[in-house]
């Protein structure tokens, strides 16, 4: 581990030939790699619109094309400054690809970027439609721990295990439903972008996405709990 060398600030003129550049990866005049503006959007990095139902095959193709152009291996013989640009750019490329290829990370990135991702206050509350099941689950978990403390009666354990497995199935279904719902909003978001919808419409969609994401993370936590209890049982 070492300290990074100090990097440069954004330039609108090519550092090598002084031609005017507009934030492209390479100078349109001399073809030299350019420093990336600090605030570059991951979608823009790939030259893609900010749609959420992304064509992942197309994304992967662009990722490979850009890897060819930006990877440090292809700058080994260039001067230190360009080598550093390549290092930073390909790191950003990989960061961007990591965030965009996964639908959940993708929407989280978009919301964070727009200042619309708010996890906070509602996180700990069970979604109303799951209240009953969560209540049952907590009961089963308490019972299970009780039986285990008492030394574990075989029949009781088996019955509880079956209950937990049923709960697992329920939460897996709930997760699938939430993912479908999220994908539905993705579709609405993409159409809204195509239709040139205004700020208010977009904000409303982002608020809904945020709400669904919070619900999703609640269910995922429940599922993780059940699974770790099952693994122990």
């Amino acid at each position, binding site marked *: *581990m*070492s*300290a*990074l*060398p*100090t*990097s440069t600030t954004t330039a609108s003129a090519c550092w090598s030939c002084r031609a005017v550049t507009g934030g492209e990866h390479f100078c349109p005049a001399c073809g030299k790699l350019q420093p990336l503006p600090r605030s570059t959007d991951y979608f823009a990095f790939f030259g893609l619109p900010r749609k959420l139902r992304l064509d992942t095959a197309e994304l992967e193709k662009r990722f*490979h*094309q850009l*890897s*060819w152009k930006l*990877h*440090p*291996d*292809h700058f*080994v*013989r260039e001067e230190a400054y360009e080598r550093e640009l390549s*290092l*930073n750019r*390909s*790191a*950003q490329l*990989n*960061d961007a*690809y*990591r965030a965009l290829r996964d639908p959940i990370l993708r929407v989280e990135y978009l919301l964070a970027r727009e200042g619309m991702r708010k996890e906070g206050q509602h996180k700990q509350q069970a979604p109303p439609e799951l209240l009953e099941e969560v209540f049952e689950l907590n009961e089963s978990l308490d019972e299970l721990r009780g039986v285990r403390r008492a030394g574990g009666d075989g029949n009781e354990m088996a019955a509880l295990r079956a209950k937990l497995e049923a709960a697992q199935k329920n939460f897996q279904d709930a997760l699938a439903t939430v993912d479908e719902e999220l994908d539905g909003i993705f579709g609405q978001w993409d159409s809204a972008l195509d239709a040139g919808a205004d700020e208010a419409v977009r904000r409303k969609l982002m608020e809904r996405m945020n709400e669904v994401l919070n619900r999703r993370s609640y269910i995922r936590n429940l599922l993780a709990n059940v699974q770790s209890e099952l693994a122990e049982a």
Partner: protein
Amino acid sequence: MGRVVGIDLGTTYSLIAYVDRTTGEPRCIPGPYGETLCPSVVSVDPDGTVVVGEPARRRLLTQSDRTIYSVKRLMGRGAADVQDELKIFPFRIDPESQNVIRVRLGERVFTPPEISAFILRELKGWAEEFFHDAVDRAVITVPAYFNDAQRQATKDAGRLAGLEALRLVNEPTAAALAYGLHEKPATAGGLVAVYDLGGGTFDISILKLISTGEGDIYQVLSTNGDTHLGGDDIDNLLQSIAREEIRKQFRFDLDSHPEAVQELRRALIRAKHELSAAEATTVRFPVPAGVYVREFTRAELEGWIRPLVERTMGPVKQAVADAKLAPAQMHEVVLVGGSTRIPLVRRSVEGYFGRRPHTELNPDEVVALGAAVQAEILESGVKNMLLLDVTPLSLGIETMGGVVAKIIPRNSTIPASAQELFTTGVDNQTGIDIHVLQGERELAKDCRSLARFQLKVPPGPAGLARIEVKFLIDANGILQVAARDLHAGEERSIEVQPSYGLSDTEIERMLEESIEYAEQDFSERQLIEARNEAESILHVTEKSLAQAREEQAEVGDAERETIEAAVAAVRESMAGSDYKLIRARIDALNQATLPLAERMMNRALATALEGKRVEDV
């Protein structure tokens, strides 16, 4: 600028390779003995002369206190990390060691990167002799599962050996690269699992080979492993079994006989190798009260090593799951590392993937060959092949309550980065402490500490400061850190104190010190070693002839004449300065004395066996 090479710096053996520009094929460079494998063994003479490779390995038997093997196990580790290894390996760790281990070799003390640098310098010498040209840059391979400190230590070793590490490449990835050259049509667009069980480390990598208009991309999807699992562990296991049996049978404890321990180790390693082809083999090992004669069967060996082989399957399953694939989806499975010659290992891998693994390439050489391919890509600017590797471990920072917040997940394609914003918690706080870690566990205490540093902030109300820290893992898998004060808009480099490893000043000092070793020219050193070896073999020959006379063993006139002529030839070559000639004459003398040596060995064995029978009665 000099030549560029690929180096496999292994636990047991190290190799150096290059790409032959006329054929485009990678090849290993042979050393002075014509062997491509250089034992990763280093020995230091009282006068400071360093001996590396085969001659150093021979010294394990005679000068074990100034000789070291398997130093790779110590790279990038602190004294507290290696307590378990010390019970098994005869490392003499300096008591002053803390976050960098210091090993005692005779009168001197060295760090693991310095010892590895001796091996690298030896290989560099082989290549320079071969090319008649300087070699100053190299691609060096590391286990895929090496952490930041272990990678940095490897890079430091290169620097100390006068080799700029152009790139550190993960061993399984290098193997895929070497292998891909031969099998490209079959695997294009395919998924490849590389199972690499070496002397001291185990790695598994899952790769995707993609053909694009520009060329082929080798994209690593996931990797996993264990940096302390390998053939060494099998050797240790056999050793402890044999020592226990010897203790019971002969009431003889090898603990206070380090030379005998090494000799037993060699015999057992030979037996292990033989059991890969044969169903049974017998080890004969003389001890003061007789001879330990033991038949080992393959079934027996498999019973002992099954837990070790099973330990590799955990990382294999995790890597396949992380790649979001099923084992049957692999198009190819490649075996790398000497320990994959073991039939049980082959069966286990084949059983899991449901596919016969590839073993066409020499598992000892394939990593070095791949490193040479990557070196050639970097050097020649050939842009029709690209490696996209991943970081094996998640990077995180310690937060409240000792919990780790992951900022770059494992299996992220490298280079990779993450920005984190830090602020103050109380009024007029002047510094923010940051602790960087690597690992998958929840708590900081269970992860590997990489570094601690403090961000200086101007005094002010709590929460006012805005310091952005950028963590970047480069294409070698090594972390770099930079901080930026968002208020002042200024970029600052920060003093980062690594938790393990050498500081820049320490490396500078070692570089100065190492000049005395570098000054000994390679061929000069070879000459000294060859003469030393000639001296000792002449001595041994004289002794055996004298002993033969004493025991009135028959040495025929013809035989005696042959031996005397060979002795004279060795003496004559020693007067000159051609180390290769000296070596050739030593070999000839060895040949000439072979029948005599065998007869004397049989006699000794017979006496010992007789002695045993008398005792049994």
